[in-house]
């Protein structure tokens, strides 16, 4: 009898444990791989997940045919791990831009769609400069942005006021003047983080400003010379806007002007020190207020300035002679953008007149395009649909919802940062309750004609597969401001280093394309 009782007890305990297991843990997130379930893989690069949860929630409630769910990783490689593999069930990837579009579904029909109740297509809501960066060489769009931000020079308003800087730098020479004024008042003008910080974004800006967006996208990053030959070494050896960008840095990225230690600290450390007043300016982006959410009160003292125009742009102008005239033209252009003046106040036939000086239409346009070129990294955060997905239509519907006015409002409310499009009315999103810094991001993007970035969908494979890059991996920022004199380089030494890299590696870059 005793044995029987013990056996019975064992069976009872076993059954109880098995049933307990079934009660624990709750219901696991299941991704049903079907034509109506949308599985989203999200690279959480600092935007947080709240916006996506809200978006998915709203999308699922808005219709009954499809059901979306997501999984996220802070590691981009983990988020992309299943892409293109056998058995991949992900229907929508939110990742960095991928050069290989062969397994991606074209998104042209998403762009050409008009959301019910909106008066224009999704494409018409997008910034045209941005779209030009997303158009693939075959004329299709395979990726569209889900995040990222505007990049620019953020400055400490109090430092500027105390240094007596009343005019925000309109040109890069004026940026050097501001740095000098700050330095003479005991402030450290700049800080960045290791490997040049976000200055690389400004380098693309200055490059694009100097040579024009057309050369930047359709020649340099298409690796194509004026005669149409591609690939060509000429684009790497030309002393173009890249060289002029280095000349800009020669005046401002100096050991005297840059916070000590900048060349070795990480971006959080740099941003924290910047917000604590250790430096007066730092190149950063829309994510600054999100990433530094513990310093929200301090953010009130910071703003992002409009992109300074590279002073050397006068090389490309026939009627603008010198720095003084360039600044006047920029002030005139700004006055129109700020609503203080109208275009007709300056127009004179085909030309423009500023303080009695005639400026050609071509020069006006050159400077306007430069002034309203805004570096961004939206193209570094891309939504794409694998063409083998079982729920391609569903994923597209999700994207149409995301890019609808309703979807954009959900995004901006959570992230408080812009995307490169507007509401169907043409207005930016509702920014009431946003900080002045956050509002400025929307304004800058709304003004933007071009959004220079190295993440261009159509860029030649010599960059994506071959390994070429605009500055060939030379860390010019560190070299210009190294505290140790032996490590410091001049612009011409840096340029020579870049050219040597081209000389040493061009053939390898080309051969790597063919693999």
């Amino acid at each position: 009898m005793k044995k029987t009782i013990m056996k019975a007890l064992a069976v009872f305990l076993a059954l109880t444990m098995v049933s307990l297991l079934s009660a624990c843990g709750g219901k696991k997130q299941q991704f049903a791989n079907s034509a109506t379930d949308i599985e989203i893989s999200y690279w959480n690069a600092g935007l947080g997940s709240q916006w996506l949860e809200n978006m998915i929630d709203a999308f699922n409630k808005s219709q009954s045919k499809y059901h979306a769910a997501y999984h996220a990783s802070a590691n981009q490689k983990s988020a992309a791990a299943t892409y293109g593999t056998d058995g991949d069930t992900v229907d929508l990837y939110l990742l960095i831009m991928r050069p290989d579009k062969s397994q991606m579904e074209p998104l042209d029909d998403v762009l050409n769609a008009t959301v019910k109740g909106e008066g224009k297509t999704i494409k018409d809501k997008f910034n045209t400069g941005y779209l030009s960066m997303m158009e693939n060489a075959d004329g299709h769009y395979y990726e569209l942005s889900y995040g990222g931000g505007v990049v620019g020079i953020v400055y400490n308003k109090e430092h500027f006021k105390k240094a007596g800087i009343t005019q925000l730098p309109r040109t890069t020479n004026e940026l050097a003047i501001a740095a000098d004024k700050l330095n003479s008042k005991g402030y450290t003008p700049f800080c960045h983080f290791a490997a040049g910080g976000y200055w690389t974004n400004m380098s693309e800006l200055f490059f694009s400003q100097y040579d024009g967006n057309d050369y930047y996208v359709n020649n340099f990053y298409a690796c194509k010379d004026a005669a149409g030959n591609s690939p060509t070494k000429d684009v790497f050896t030309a002393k173009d806007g890249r060289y002029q960008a280095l000349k800009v840095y020669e005046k401002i990225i100096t050991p005297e002007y840059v916070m000590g230690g900048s060349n070795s600290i990480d971006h959080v450390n740099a941003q924290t020190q910047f917000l604590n007043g250790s430096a007066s300016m730092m190149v950063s982006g829309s994510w600054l207020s999100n990433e530094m959410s513990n310093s929200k009160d301090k953010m009130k003292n910071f703003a992002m300035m409009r992109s300074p125009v590279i002073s050397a742009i006068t090389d490309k102008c026939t009627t603008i002679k010198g720095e003084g005239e360039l600044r006047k033209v920029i002030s005139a252009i700004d006055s129109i953008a700020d609503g203080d003046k109208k275009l007709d106040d300056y127009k004179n036939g085909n030309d423009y007149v500023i303080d009695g000086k005639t400026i050609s239409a071509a020069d006006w346009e050159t400077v306007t395009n430069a002034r309203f070129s805004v570096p961004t990294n939206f193209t570094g955060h891309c939504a794409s649909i694998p063409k083998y997905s079982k729920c391609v239509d569903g994923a597209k519907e999700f994207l149409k919802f995301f890019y609808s006015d309703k979807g954009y409002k959900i995004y901006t409310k959570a992230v408080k940062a812009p995307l490169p499009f507007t509401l169907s009315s043409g207005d930016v999103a509702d920014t009431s309750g946003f900080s002045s810094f956050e509002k400025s991001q929307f304004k800058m993007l709304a003004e933007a004609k071009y959004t220079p970035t190295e993440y261009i969908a159509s860029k030649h494979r010599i960059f994506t597969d071959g390994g070429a890059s605009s500055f060939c991996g030379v860390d010019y920022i560190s070299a210009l401001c190294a505290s140790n004199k032996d490590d410091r380089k001049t612009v011409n030494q840096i340029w020579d280093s870049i050219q040597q890299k081209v000389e040493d590696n061009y053939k390898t870059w080309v051969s790597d394309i063919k693999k």
Partner: protein
Amino acid sequence: MINTYKTKCLTLLSLLLSLAVVLALPVSAGNITTSITATNEEGELNVADWYDPNDELEIKNGVLVIPNDSSSETRIITKILAEKDDSYTAMAEVSGSLKFTSLPAEEYFSIGFGLDGIESYSEEPESAEILFKNTGGLSIGAVYYDESGDKSEVAPFVNAGSVSSVLSFSAVLYCNDDLKLSINGREVVSAKIPGSLEGRIGFLQSGNCGAEIGNLNVVFHKYDRPENFDYIETFEKGVYNEELFTTAYYGSARSPAGMNVEDYGGSKVLMYRNTGRCYFGTKKQYSNFELSFDIPYISRETKKDEDGNIVLTPCDTFCISFGDVARDFDGWQFTTSTELVHFTLNTVWGYNHKPEKFRVPYSDMGFSDKNTNQGFSVKMRMVDGKFTLYLKKLADTEFTEIAAAYYENFRTGYIKFWSTGNSNIAIDNVSLKNLDENPNLIEAKFTSALIKVDDFKYEKIKPVFKSNGKEESEFKFLWIYISLGVSALILVIAFTVRIILNKKGRKKKNENV
């Protein structure tokens, strides 16, 4: 036991060496002399020290060329400012060779003093200019623009030869507001300026003036007088003064390890225990200074634990860096420190990316017992670039000089005590004295470096599981009740069946019996 003869020889040698160096070379920080030229080492325009607002100027064959088609916008201005100080008479000296390629009669070329910004123009209020004019020959004079911009002649124009000749010029700006210019060794301008000319120096013009300036050199004098403290850190409060000092710790290869204030020998000390890369450094910069500290403990032994793991090593290299450009460094940046004094157990040397300044095998000098873990005391003095190193026994009162060197480019900066790896050493009584003339001292307050963290206030929340937008309880208690019920039912059924079978079995048995 101190080898008196050897020590005296070394001391004498060091003194003679340092004296020779001081006599031969100009002094530097606190008293800093900065010399800037138009060209950098690459033979290009020296944009580190000069600002060319219109990017018009260039260097050709080592000569600064100002084009003939210049305008009033064409100018070049120093980034460094001339400053007055009681410790020197001349603020700045400008010299070189000057040849005009274009000097129209109605225009002028000038050397400007007291300029406010790097984009300053000619005729700036509160500035002075030495003007070069073409009056049939070369005429040179000086003018001053007052705060309203009104011009007054402060030195009459004199004939200085032909416009086309090459001039050797030297202009000196004095702290008493005198301005003098010599051409080919002859004084042609001597002006008393009715205002201060602290500020930048530049080459300016009214327009259409072309020139070639060779061997351009501008010397600025400055007395670097950073704001800092005289202070002795004894660590007796159990913590260092966070108002004045900072620390950074970058890990260790050994355990236990750390850099903490600890009790040692009846006193509190800063103990570096098996430290990797870390430092204890100043939060203020020092120009001329005296630093002294005790090393009550320095490990000279290896210890292992019961498992044979090394838990203590002889102290590896530790360093004192000074003139550091940044207050906060990362772990490897001691290798880029401006100046570094390295100590091992046997030798001390001064070196960092430059030729070695000195090397002394101090362990044979008897400042500490090599058979114990007791240390010694160190003193360093830096005055106008002259560096002197002293050691003494812990119990002694007088220091002995063991090395001296001249640091010609020494700059004001931060001071740090570095562990570069496997340091087992304690420091105590860290004394800092500002040795600047008319030091810029501020009162040292005490702030404890202990970080106090308040208890985190949190609210317990009920975990919520969401599925398809609905909240669901994660732990399904109902399933447990059902499971228990089913389990119990199964048992009851099993028992009942067993009992019935047993009864049947017994009955059958009884029947068979």
